[in-house]
Each structure stands twice: as structure tokens, then as C-alpha cells.
């Protein structure tokens, strides 16, 4: 889809001129319509020149294009690192890079999780418009999930990257509890969609609730307070709590709260390529299942719905290391 970059290009070609034109147009329009009050101001004589009011411009168009580019590159790189290169270190490096760029540099906004709301609102109300960036951020990770599994979660999502980084001493969650908690993202998704598209109108006899449209996901985002280094206390508290939890129970937000993760897990069930822990033979040693902090290995296979493609299982597979050593031996001329 060709994006209309005309405004961005104009700014490159004649930045000062366009801005002056807009200001002149605004002043002209104002002076025509405010006939009684806004004519030429008095000339103060001497050397006074009107200060030009500064209007710092928002991020130019090209940074949003750069974001999309980085997203595509990140998804592609994650897919390659997880499926082809099978490198835990590579995925970790990528996730640190994603945390730095999408998290701290772009301050975590706009993200695919929030994009659910924009898409809902645009579909629910035809008077709303949407930007290309939001469309790209919503759909590209879904396409990647259909192709390669949850590679977005592995190396591109800054929230996931942060939780992955603080994972200190992973404990296993009992499977029944895990399965129960895995319903929560869909509840959150339903609430977020309802509030983003329609708000809440509920009548129970004489008792009525009316709530306007809100972006719940944005208002309850756990880590955006950290990325901005500013925020209301409740958001910071929830974020700190999830970090604390994440030190022991790997990626709690990703597994049990993230609404976009809920959508991704539905789609990645049918992915074209998925994580194959052992490169060829299965040893039935079960070391991968021990190593996986997210409980995503079922019957010694990666469960496509819950596997977050973190590549830790490769690190623990003896067959993977044997093949690596053999490859090294072959290369060395000894």
C-alpha cells in the first residue's frame, strides 16, 4: 500500500516555507474572520519585530515509517534467530535492542496491544480514521504469527523483553492453575474491545452504569510508566509488582494478561513453521521441559499456542549441543 508521504516530503523540500505558509494562512484566516479585533497590531516603531511564536513540531512522518521498518526487521530477525539460527543469545540481544528502541526510545507507544483499541474503534464507528502505522503494528505481528509463531513476543515486544530480562529463578506454575489463568487475556481482550468501541451502558432495573469510550489497555499498561519515567502511582505500582513477579514466574503479563497475546496464541496454533526443539533426534531426556520457564513444552513438543519463542529450550537440548560441536570440529582443520 502506497503511503502518501507528500507532507513529509514537502517538509524535506521546503521546510521553512511550508511552515511559514501555514502560519501566514492561519494569520490571514484569523485576520479576515476576526475583523473587529485582529487587524494589524500597532507598530511600536523603532526596531521592534514581532517574536515568531515557536511551535515545536511533532514527530515527522518519517519516524513512523522507521517504526514500521524496524518492526518488520525485528520480526524477520526474530523468526530467523528462533527457527533457523536457533540461538538463545541472538534472541536475547534482539529483545534488548527492542526494549531500547520500542521501549525507551519510542516510549512504548504505539504498540500492537494498544492498536487493538484503535482497530476496534475504527471498525465500530465509521467517523473515526486510523493511521497506516497503527494498521501495520496491529497486523504485521499477526501475519508473522501465522507464519512463524509468536516471534513478536520473543524478540520484538518491549514489554515481553523487559519481563524476559528480569527472569531470575523461574518456578513452575502448576498446570491446572496455568490453564485457568490463560483465560484471563481473553477476558481482558473482551473488556478492552468493549470499552474502546462502545463504552459501557448497563441497566439492571433502576441501577445504571454509563461509561464513555476509554482505552483501557493504555490506561492500565504496566510498563509504560517506566518507559516514560513518569506516571500515576497505580500504574507504576502494578508495573513494579509484575517485575517482581516476573523474577520468579516468567513473563506473567505475557502469559496471563496480554490481550494481544491472546490473539497471537489463537493464530500461532496454525503457524506454518514452529519451534522444533531438537534438530534431528529426540532423546526423550526432558531437559527442554525443565528449562522452559513458561511451561510451554507439552509431551516434549513446543506448544505452539503458549510457546513464546524465547529459544531457551535450544540451549538445554543435548542434541543441539552435540551437533554444534560436530559442526565446529568439522570446520577446524585438525
Amino acid at each position, binding site marked *: 500500500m502506497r503511503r502518501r508521504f507528500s507532507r513529509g516530503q514537502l517538509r524535506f523540500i521546503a521546510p521553512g516555507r511550508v511552515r511559514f505558509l501555514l502560519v501566514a494562512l492561519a494569520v490571514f484566516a484569523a485576520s479576515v474572520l476576526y*475583523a*473587529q*479585533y*485582529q*487587524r*494589524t*497590531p*500597532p507598530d511600536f*516603531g523603532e526596531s521592534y519585530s514581532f517574536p515568531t511564536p515557536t511551535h515545536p513540531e511533532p514527530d515527522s512522518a518519517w519516524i513512523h515509517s522507521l517504526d514500521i521498518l524496524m518492526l518488520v526487521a525485528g520480526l524477520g530477525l526474530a523468526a530467523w534467530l528462533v527457527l533457523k539460527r536457533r540461538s538463545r543469545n541472538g534472541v536475547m540481544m534482539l529483545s534488548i535492542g527492542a526494549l531500547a528502541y520500542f521501549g525507551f526510545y519510542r516510549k512504548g507507544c504505539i504498540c500492537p496491544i494498544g492498536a487493538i483499541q484503535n482497530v476496534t474503534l475504527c471498525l465500530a464507528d465509521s467517523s473515526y480514521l486510523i493511521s497506516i502505522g497503527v494498521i501495520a503494528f496491529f497486523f504485521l505481528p499477526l501475519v508473522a504469527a501465522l507464519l512463524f509463531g509468536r516471534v513478536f513476543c520473543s524478540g520484538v515486544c518491549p514489554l515481553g523483553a*523487559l519481563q524476559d*530480562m*528480569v*527472569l*531470575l*529463578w*523461574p518456578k513452575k506454575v502448576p498446570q491446572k492453575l496455568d490453564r485457568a489463568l490463560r483465560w484471563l487475556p481473553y477476558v481482558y481482550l473482551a473488556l478492552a474491545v468493549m470499552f474502546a468501541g462502545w463504552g459501557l451502558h448497563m441497566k439492571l432495573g433502576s441501577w445504571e452504569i454509563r461509561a464513555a469510550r476509554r482505552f483501557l489497555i493504555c490506561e492500565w499498561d504496566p510498563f509504560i*510508566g*517506566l518507559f*516514560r*519515567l*513518569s*506516571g500515576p*502511582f497505580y500504574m*507504576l*505500582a502494578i*508495573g*513494579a509488582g509484575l*517485575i*517482581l513477579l516476573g*523474577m520468579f514466574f516468567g513473563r506473567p503479563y505475557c502469559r496471563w494478561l496480554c490481550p494481544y497475546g491472546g490473539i497471537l496464541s489463537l493464530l500461532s496454533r496454525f503457524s506454518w513453521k514452529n519451534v522444533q526443539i531438537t534438530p534431528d533426534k529426540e532423546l526423550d*531426556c526432558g*531437559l527442554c521441559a525443565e*528449562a522452559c520457564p513458561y511451561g510451554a513444552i507439552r509431551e516434549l513438543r513446543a506448544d505452539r499456542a503458549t510457546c513464546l519463542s524465547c529459544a*531457551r529450550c535450544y*540451549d*538445554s537440548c*543435548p542434541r543441539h*549441543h552435540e551437533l554444534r560441536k560436530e559442526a565446529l570440529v568439522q570446520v577446524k582443520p585438525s
Partner: protein
Amino acid sequence: MEPPGKNADTYTVRDRFRKSWLPIAAAVGAFAGFVSAAFQLRPDAKPVSGGAPRAAEPFAPQQSSGQPTLDYELQYSKSVVIGPPGSAHQFQRSLLGVAVGPKDEIYVLGEDEIKVFDSGGGFLRSWKVLQGAYCFTVTADGRVYVGALGKIEIYNRVGIWSGGFPAGEADKPAAITALKIFRNEVLAADADARYIRRFDQNGRQLGVIGIRNNTGNFMLPNRWLDFDIDSNGLVTATDTGRHLVTAWALDGSPVSSFGKFGMTDPAHFVGCCNPVNLALTPDGKVVTAEKMVARVKVYEPGGRLMAVIGPENFDPACTHIYLAVDSTGRILAADPVRRTITGFSQANKVGRSQPLTSEASPMDSQKREEFNIL
């Protein structure tokens, strides 16, 4: 986490932390970030401290509420209202000026039209004028001069356009905010150039009034200059930035001035730029209108306050109250927010207000009906 084959017993706690330096560092960093965000420790997170000197004794202007005006020498009461909501000739969009014509007829400029009412408020006739008209005046024989940006247009007494001339220079058109006719001269207030221009009937500029000031012309922060001229040719003009009512001779020499800023004394002018409008009564008294505290006051020529028509009569959002005075001394005040024209006639000194009828002549029954329709 541990590579396979390594004996778990020999794996000490220190080894574990050596391997886990990254998650520990990340967690510590994250907590530090949350704490600093909670306590707003970023350098640009707080404004530079330093408050402003607060007033020692704050007080509010005294006379803004509906205080009775029994203290003043003159009392005024409403005698006619033109254009209230629901009336047949209500102004829908704008109201820009009022003037008195021959036989004390009330001329009103609004939404590109001039409407003429008789002194009792009965509608007589109306006609369209040019778009963008700011002000107008009526001669003794009923001709109407309308001022707009850069030009003055003339209409005859039945409303046919009968001429006009440009005002100001091509690159600096005159923003004409008040017009008065004196003998065979046309005086136009130019709010952009900030002086009053004098033209002859053909549009040739004869001179200017208002440039012999200390620091250049009238000060008009609200971009509006209003004036009136009496039968002797003395021009009384508003100098809103200086809170002055100034008097000039026709040749431009300053004669006198009065007025000062003040929020409490009713004789002073409130706010940043007042008085916004001005008119002269036939006996030489000065009627001023103010904004912010929307009121109309009557002064003696020397500056002594004679009467106050309080803010309860006007909409508080008014930025102007256009004024005109008819031959009986009745003050016509046009409220552009409510889009009504109210006539205030002098009441008895004792304070008893007259009934709501015109003072000019006893109304016959037909006129009274017209008034009721309004």
C-alpha cells in the same frame, strides 16, 4: 539454565548469581526506574519553583453587583428595548452599532443591514449595506455613512447607495471603527493607524487628530477607537490603553483628558483597556461604556461621575456596548451579545423610575401596540 551434565551439587549460590547478573541488573534498574518515576526525580519533571508576589490584601471591585444607584446625581431607567428574543426584528447574528437620526429615529447596524426604528421602538424600514461594515453614523438629513476596512460608503435616507470613498492608504487601509459628520467634514476613527482622520465630502483627507501625544497616537490594545463630536467641534475620544477620555480640537491640538485605571472606585475604568465606547449628550455630558464590568457611565465634561447604569443591564461577556444619545438625552445602549438595544432615560432624582414608555412624546395606542409586539 545449567548446561546438561553439570553436577547440580557443585553449583554454588555465587555461581548462580554470576550467571544471573543480567536479570538482577535488569530488575534493579526497573525498580529504580519505577521509584524515580513515582517521585518525579527527572530534571524536567518539576517546574522551576518561584511563585509570584501575592497581594497583601486582595479585594474585589466594589460595584459589580446590582447595587442601587441612588448615590448618583442622575438616575436612569429603561424606557425601550429593541430586539429582545422573540421579537419580530430580532438580530440573529450580529449587532454592530447604534445611532440616532432625524426625529430621534433609532438606526441600528447589524448582520449587514441597517434597520430604522422610531423613538418608541416601532420598526420603520431596513436596507442592506456592504459586508464587513464596522460602524456608521446618520446625518441630520437622514443620510447614512457606513465605515468598513479601508472605505466609507454613503446611503441616502431611503437606503440607496449614493457614493463613497476610500480611506487610508492602499497598503494601510483605515480600520474605521467610528464615524461622525460635522458640518461638511467626515471624521473617521482609524483604529489601525490609531488616530482620527478628517475628510471632506469628496474623500480628500484634511488632517488627523490624536497624533500629538507623548508616545505616538492613541493606545488601543483592544483595536477599537471610538469618539464623538459636539456642536462646537470638540472631539471627545477614547484612549483605551491609557484609560483616558481625551478631548481634542479639530485641528488636532489636545484640549483635556480625564480618567484613570481602578477596579474599585466606580469613577475609574476597570481592566486593561477601557472605556471601549463613548457618546456625548446634547448638553455636553460624556457617556462611556466599559467591558469586563459591563456598564455605562455618565460624566461631566470635567470628569466628575454623574450616573452609573450598572452591569445588571448588560451581558457580562460584552466586549463593546455601542452608544448613541438622542435629542432628549436618552441613552441608547446596544448589547452585541444579547443583541438588544436598550434605551435609558433620565429618571427623577429621588429614584422613582418612570413606567416603561417613551419619554419623547405621549404614545398613542397604535404605537403602544407596536411596542408590545417588540
